[in-house]
């Protein structure tokens, strides 16, 4: 009977325990309800403040995002500086990385080349659910955050904005990214090792839309845009006129071998290899100084680091008064102004690219160094190369010459004047003082050729002779020769490739890195 009583007592205790448990459960539920009520109240108050915001954090705010016109200004990541300390601002950026640690979540937000650290901690502004939500957001998603800018004592070395961090109060997702990325961003940004080059380039191009987002790509293409703009500005200041030339033409301008054919209604036409013909026609029409920026198509089956089948050509043509050196000086001065402009205005971009692809800064002389072909041959012979006096320079010889010039004059950019006539196209004007040479020139950056130019023959008779000497069918170039029959001023010019110039200025090694959507014999997409 003691057992019974103890059981009974146990039962009682159990009951008591039960009720204790039940009490606890009730308490918990009450708490939860209270919290929920609080939350609801908060929501209501938030809703009352900004009737459009649903929540403190939310997924997929609204796909189109165009159903409100908010006055809310968004601050760019690159403008987050200590001056904005203690300000509450909105930022739109991508999630570069996110890392959760207990009650805190560290995010690195990125916009173009700029990154900033953001901190989300459980507290009176953020709930645990919110921190968990932030930690689970996929990388590369675009988000809006409302945060307070805080100064930091220790510099944050891994971000571009090193003196501040954001303390996040609200976070919304504008566009979510899929979880599995085709190319990890770190891989795309890591400096290249040996043997990696070809495969890496392929990988990067396949995932181009992803790769264009890296800080380095942003920097490269901003710089390229700068080159184009400086080219235009400098020439317009010199009194040049920009022209547009057709790209579908009836006859191959440079030679029949490397030209793309397109079907043109019942016949076929060609894609322009250069705007040569049309530039010259404009000079004959007394425009005096013209330039054009447009695509150039070369069907060369060369799979090298510096050839593309389609690239952007920046071409110049100019009439001169007495000597073609006037044109050559004008072109070299334009190049020097471009280099100076890049150095002055694009230092951030140059440094960003250098971090991933280190290289020597680009050096040049003003006025530009001009050497003659004979001197170059003598320099090469002194260095042990065997070549004929009228032989063209092979690519390794050009590179060696570039190194010799760099050693003696400390410049990465120079002009080689007076090439032998035999290795130049038929429309090149021969040198009046020496029939074996011509009034033509090439310009080199870091030992690689970027421009091939010359004084053009402006006399129809001489042009016909030279064409016959080169066994060119006169019928095909009849229109071209005709344009010089009715008075043509003496003129000269040349053209550069935008991608190649960008590549060589930055010291990169593959022109596909500086072409947004490169085209070569093996690549047609994206």
């Amino acid at each position, binding site marked *: 009977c003691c057992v019974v009583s103890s059981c009974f007592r146990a039962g009682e205790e159990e009951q008591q325990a039960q009720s204790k448990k039940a009490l606890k459960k009730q308490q918990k539920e009450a708490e939860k309800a209270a919290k929920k009520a609080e939350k609801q109240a908060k929501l209501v108050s938030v809703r009352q403040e900004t009737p459009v915001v649903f929540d403190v954090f939310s997924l997929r705010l609204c796909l189109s995002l165009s159903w409100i016109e908010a006055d809310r200004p968004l601050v760019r990541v690159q403008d987050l500086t200590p001056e904005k300390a203690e300000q509450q601002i909105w930022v739109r950026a991508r999630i570069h990385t996110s890392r959760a640690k207990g009650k805190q979540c560290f995010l690195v937000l990125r916009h173009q080349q700029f990154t900033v650290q953001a901190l989300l901690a459980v507290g009176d502004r953020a709930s645990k659910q919110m921190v968990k939500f932030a930690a689970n957001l996929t990388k590369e998603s675009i988000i809006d955050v409302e945060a307070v800018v805080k100064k930091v004592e220790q510099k944050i070395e891994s971000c571009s904005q090193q003196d501040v961090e954001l303390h996040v109060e609200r976070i919304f997702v504008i566009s979510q990214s899929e979880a599995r990325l085709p190319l990890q961003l770190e891989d795309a940004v890591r400096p290249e090792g040996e043997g990696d080059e070809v495969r890496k380039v392929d990988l990067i191009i396949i995932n181009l839309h992803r790769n264009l987002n890296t800080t380095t790509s942003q920097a490269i293409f901003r710089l390229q845009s700068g080159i184009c703009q400086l080219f235009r500005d400098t020439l317009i200041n010199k009194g040049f006129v920009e022209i547009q030339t057709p790209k579908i033409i009836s006859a191959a301008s440079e030679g029949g071998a490397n030209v793309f054919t397109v079907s043109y209604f019942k016949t076929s036409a060609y894609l322009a290899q250069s705007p040569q013909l049309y530039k010259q026609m404009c000079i004959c029409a007394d425009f005096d100084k013209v330039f054009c920026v447009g695509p150039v198509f070369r069907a060369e089956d060369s799979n090298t680091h510096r050839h593309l089948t389609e690239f952007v050509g920046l071409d110049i043509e100019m009439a001169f008064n007495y*000597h073609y*050196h006037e044109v050559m000086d004008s072109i070299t001065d334009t190049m020097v102004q471009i*280099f*100076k402009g890049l*150095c002055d205005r694009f230092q951030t971009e140059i440094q960003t690219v250098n971090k991933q692809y280190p290289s020597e800064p*680009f*050096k*040049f*002389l*003003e*006025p530009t*160094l*001009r*050497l*003659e072909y*004979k*001197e*170059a*041959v*003598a*320099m090469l*012979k*002194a*260095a042990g190369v065997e070549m004929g006096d009228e032989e063209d320079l092979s690519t390794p010889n050009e590179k060696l010459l570039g190194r*010799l010039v760099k*050693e*003696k*004059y*400390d*410049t990465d950019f120079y002009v080689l004047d007076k090439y032998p006539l035999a290795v130049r196209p038929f429309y090149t004007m021969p040198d009046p*003082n020496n029939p074996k040479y011509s009034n033509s020139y090439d310009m080199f950056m870091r030992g690689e050729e970027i421009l091939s130019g010359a004084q053009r023959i402006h006399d129809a008779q001489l042009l016909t002779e030279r064409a016959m000497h080169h066994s060119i069918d006169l019928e095909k170039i009849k229109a071209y020769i005709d344009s010089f029959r009715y008075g043509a001023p003496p003129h000269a010019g040349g053209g550069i490739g935008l991608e190649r110039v960008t590549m060589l200025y930055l010291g990169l090694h593959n022109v596909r890195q500086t072409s947004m959507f490169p085209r070569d014999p093996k690549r047609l997409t994206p």
Partner: protein
Amino acid sequence: MPMYKVKPVSPGDIKIDLPTCMYKLPNTHAQGMNCGEHALQNGEVDPALKALEERQDEVLRRLYELKATVDGLAKTVTTPDADLDASTLSRGPAESVFRGTADLDSLLGKDLGALRDIVINANPAHPPLSLLVLHALLCQRYQVLSSVHVHSSVSVVPPPLLSCLGPRHIDSYARQRFQLGFTLIWKDVSKLQMKFNTQSMCPIEGEANVARFLFRLLSAEPQDPLAATQMDCWIDTAVFQLAEVGSKEHAAVLRSLNSALGCSPWLLGQEFSLADIVCACCVLRAGQTTSAAANIQRWLKSCQNLGHFDCVNPLLQ
């Protein structure tokens, strides 16, 4: 009692003749062989051997002679004026400066068809005045293609420095017509540097050394060693001690200049030389020439009158 018995296969008492000698060679000393080679065993000496001995003696003797000479030289070097009597040095007629003909091929090496371009990298903060004077002198002797460039490491260069080599030559479009190139590049360098033939020459540093190189191209070096040494001495004094204005060294050098110029119109005597060029440029660069001693002022005036210093004046303002 053995278990098995086998008949012996071979008798155990065969005597085997074991060899004691591994290899056998014919006896060279045996009688009856050709003794022609051994005729000299009787104390006569083989003529070939004799010749060898004589050669060895000869070599040893020459060695001793050399050793004696070197010892003698060592003595003369360590004890000054031991073997050198300065009074016996011929004071030959001082070579008339700037009037000798020069053969660039012998001075600078064979012409390979390239313009012989002398490249000088100078800092625009310290323009090398003496080199500008020498450039003017070179232009009188040879056809010189001069050009001035500004390197990308320097942002702004004052206009007088851009035109310091004079107006552009009419024929400058045809580089091959010139014998010598003089390319001055204003660059951010700590020390003035000259590059000529990068394959066979290292760069020359320092204004004084480049000045000596350019002066030699004029074939106007003083022929007698005394004058040459004095010239070098003046150049070094100017470059190292005339640098700081107002220092005691500076004043001391000016005093010695004054006294030297009291005896002769130029520092080396009757002829204008590189010492005058370098010293005058250092004095002019230091400034305060109006307060200098009488002899120095007269000397500076003479330098100006020669006309070579015209290029320097616009840079002194």
